[in-house]
């Protein structure tokens, strides 16, 4: 994956958590996920990218941290069964994706509507077409991962250099 895509996501996560959750985020070293170091989240929110660059961002969290973050974001106490829990988590992913895409200089990129998966210990994997990196994030309410898999499309690269 083009590592230039990592910083826009780091910046976007920080901005979102500071502005809407009043929290700081610290980051571990990004790594390429494989079967040995793969996280097994309980809640994942996914946003797809298309256009001059394509791929996806996945906000992957354990159950407790997902509930704490969704509750703080929405301003109401939630659990996994709350009618708006998936909506809140999806909107957080949406804001992370939107903030990052605004930093993709010279690329016209669209984002999808969010999808949210809730299920114990599921696996987040990237396709071979979109190899990704995992960004470890720590907050005062717990740790989570943000998986980023982005690729600049050939047509856009050709356009950028012509």
């Amino acid at each position, binding site marked *: 994956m083009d590592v230039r895509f990592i910083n826009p996501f780091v910046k976007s996560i920080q901005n979102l958590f500071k*502005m809407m959750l009043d929290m700081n985020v610290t980051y571990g070293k990004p790594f390429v996920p494989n079967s040995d170091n793969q996280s097994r989240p309980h809640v994942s929110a996914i946003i797809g990218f298309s256009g001059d660059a394509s791929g996806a961002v996945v906000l992957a969290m354990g159950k407790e941290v997902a509930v704490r973050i969704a509750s703080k974001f929405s301003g109401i106490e939630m659990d996994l069964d709350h009618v708006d829990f998936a909506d809140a988590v999806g909107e957080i992913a949406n804001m992370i994706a*939107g903030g990052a895409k605004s930093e993709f200089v010279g690329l016209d990129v669209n984002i999808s*509507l969010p999808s949210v998966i809730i299920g114990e210990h599921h696996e987040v994997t990237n396709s071979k077409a979109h190899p990704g990196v995992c960004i470890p994030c720590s907050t005062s309410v717990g740790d989570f991962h943000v998986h980023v898999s982005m690729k600049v499309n050939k047509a856009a690269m050709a356009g950028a250099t012509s």
Partner: protein
Amino acid sequence: MKILLVDDSRTIRNIQKNILSTLGHTDIVESADGVEAIVKLKETSPDLILLDWNMPNMDGITFLKTIRKDGVTTPVIMCTTEAEKSRVIQAVQAGANNYVVKPFSTETMAEKIEQTLSRVATA
């Protein structure tokens, strides 16, 4: 004053409602997409619309173009994750009166609402 909130996320609509409530605005109508919003607009004649961009069924920019084409002059504040300058220009050209980028602070949202309402009042 009646305000129409158009966003597919109920969480965002609730956050907006809380902010509006602190500003003294409690007459709120809600829609989850552009199609539903066109119906609510006709039924309720709001004084202000807060409009998301990316939504199912009909997105915000299509909704905005549609209502402006129909002669609706209700002030519209786009409230969206679409932060690029090109998107802001596109929204203004389609008829948006103001623009708030998500994530937003309570202060920013309050400021944009007051700014938009005062512009309309003095126009």
